[in-house]
């Protein structure tokens, strides 16, 4: 019993950290520009594929591959932001949703054309395979690393948002974009920067996720719902909210799937509907 609970908790938290790393950029960009970016999962997928190419075709080590995924996707997202997203900021929601569905379809088709329909795998470095002894029990090293990394990233982002000048600007723009612009903040430039970092983090998460949830051309649609749910439940623009929501949903989803394999993802949707109806702006989001 305790054994099962512990392993559910551990796997759930590792899964939650992947969700957090992928979703946090989405939360901040959606909070900033109010664009319903359904295509965010495509950035994570792109990151996964860049990692696969970098490690197998180019032959760089795993961590250099992750850095490449971050850099390539962040750079590509700036182009995409200027060409497509910049024109959606003031558009009706339907246009935003449509454009994003278009991007997802293109990303899925591109993945099939370049990599084929089969799921991809990535070889982990020797130090991350196997199990780690943390005193009272043995845990998979890779998942433990992800948990540590996720928490470190959360603390770094939290510090960045709460304690730095850039963070103060982002918070100001999320709270009231028009007022921030009036005060002389370059909200457009700020957004491009945040979009690039967010997409890069998403790519990083996509790369880390390969070992845990797999990577195939349908990644963007398959997990789209989950990322959006994390963001909507956490509250737009809130790093802390995204972290809490990712933990809650990651652990619940894992527990649901372990305990009731037939029920599939039933619990996560019940939880989502209930949470959103109770707090429409998310757990830590502010009502507007």
């Amino acid at each position, binding site marked *: 019993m305790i054994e099962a609970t512990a392993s559910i908790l551990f796997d759930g938290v590792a899964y939650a950290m992947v969700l957090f790393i992928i979703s946090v950029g989405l939360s901040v960009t959606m909070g900033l520009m109010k664009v319903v970016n359904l295509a965010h999962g495509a950035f994570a997928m792109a990151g996964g594929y860049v990692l696969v190419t970098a490690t197998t075709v180019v032959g760089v080590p795993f961590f250099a591959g992750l850095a490449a995924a971050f850099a390539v996707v962040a750079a590509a997202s700036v182009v995409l932001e200027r060409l*497509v997203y910049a024109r959606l900021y003031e558009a009706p929601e339907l*246009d935003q949703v449509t454009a994003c*569905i*278009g991007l997802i379809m293109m990303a899925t*088709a591109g993945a*099939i054309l370049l990599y084929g329909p089969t799921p991809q795998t990535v070889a982990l470095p020797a130090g991350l395979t196997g199990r780690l002894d943390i005193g009272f029990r043995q845990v998979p090293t890779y998942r433990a690393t992800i948990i540590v990394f996720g928490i470190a990233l959360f603390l770094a982002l939290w510090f960045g948002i709460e304690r730095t000048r850039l963070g103060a600007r982002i918070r100001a723009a999320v709270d009231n974009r028009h007022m921030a612009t009036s005060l002389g903040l370059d909200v457009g430039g700020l957004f491009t920067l945040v979009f690039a970092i967010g997409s890069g983090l998403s790519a990083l998460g996509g790369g880390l996720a390969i070992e845990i949830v797999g990577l195939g051309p349908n990644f963007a649609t398959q997990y789209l*719902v989950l990322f959006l749910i994390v963001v909507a439940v956490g509250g737009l623009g809130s790093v802390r909210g995204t972290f809490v929501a990712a933990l809650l949903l990651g652990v619940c989803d894992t527990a649901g799937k372990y305990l009731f394999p*037939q029920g599939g993802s*039933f619990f996560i949707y019940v939880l989502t509907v209930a949470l*959103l109806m109770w707090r429409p702006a998310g757990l830590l989001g502010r009502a507007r």
Partner: protein
Amino acid sequence: MNAETAVAAAVPAIVRHRWRWYEALPWLAAIAAFFLLPGYLAFGTQIAITILFVLSLDLIVGYAGIVTLGHAAFFGLGAYAVGLLSIHADWHEPLTLLAAAGVVAAAGGALTGWFLLRYHGLTLIMLTLASAMLLHETVNAGAAVTGGYDGLTGIRIAPLFGVFDNDLWARTYYCYSVGVLFLCFLVVRRLVHAPFGLSLQGIRGNARRMSAIGYDVHRRMVAVYTLSAGLAGLAGGLLAQFSAFVTIDTLSFARSGTALVMLVLGGTGRLYGAFFGVLVYMVLEHELAKLSPAYWGLGVGMVLLAIVLLARGGLCGILARLARR
């Protein structure tokens, strides 16, 4: 948004409801197809059913401005209502079954609409999506009753009017589906030109102002959501009767998304957008997706982006602009 206002202003409200000659074209085409393309009637039946589904979506997305990613829930409710009643309640008469499908889906729409339509923006989109997925997972988990992932098989449907059975060439079901679509279209067309439909457009434009001048916005949204859900249920019920089985992807996110894609392709808030969008999408898909699903996806994605960035209003919008030249 501006282009649409311009279109609306060009045709005064008082004459907008009048029938024009070209509005007979879809129905003449449907009749012509019956005689000229006898080998394609099964495909034609699917097109008519999909048009009905997308038309129901246009009512809430195009007129009331409710963006939903979970409309397949109502399509699936209708389909499962027909399937479950036929298998577990020994009820096989097609017309009453279809009515039951509509009523069940409309009830689902009224219930969820009452709760969900208080929310806006991303929250509303996520709630429609999550509640549709919830239904999907419920059906998946309740395999003992619903057949779960394998779907419902062994649905038996009595002949239409006790006479016309489903034949190999789908002649009966083609006429049946086009007939149902025509009746539903008359209702929808009448409705959107009535004061109720105009008030929906007002809500889409500015819900707060509509509320301020005395409209009960929430009640109207729930009303149109219920009607739209009912129509989607009819479409689902028709599909279940036609194919004699129900698969779980009647409830899938992909179905909601594709319907939205077809609607945007045809043009939202124009009634005929559903006809154009579904016809063009399904015919092209039928021909091209076989060659290469990947290139098909790539092409559709590009077209969607192009519509949003360059040609708002979809195919109907392009036609309207050409007509005005």
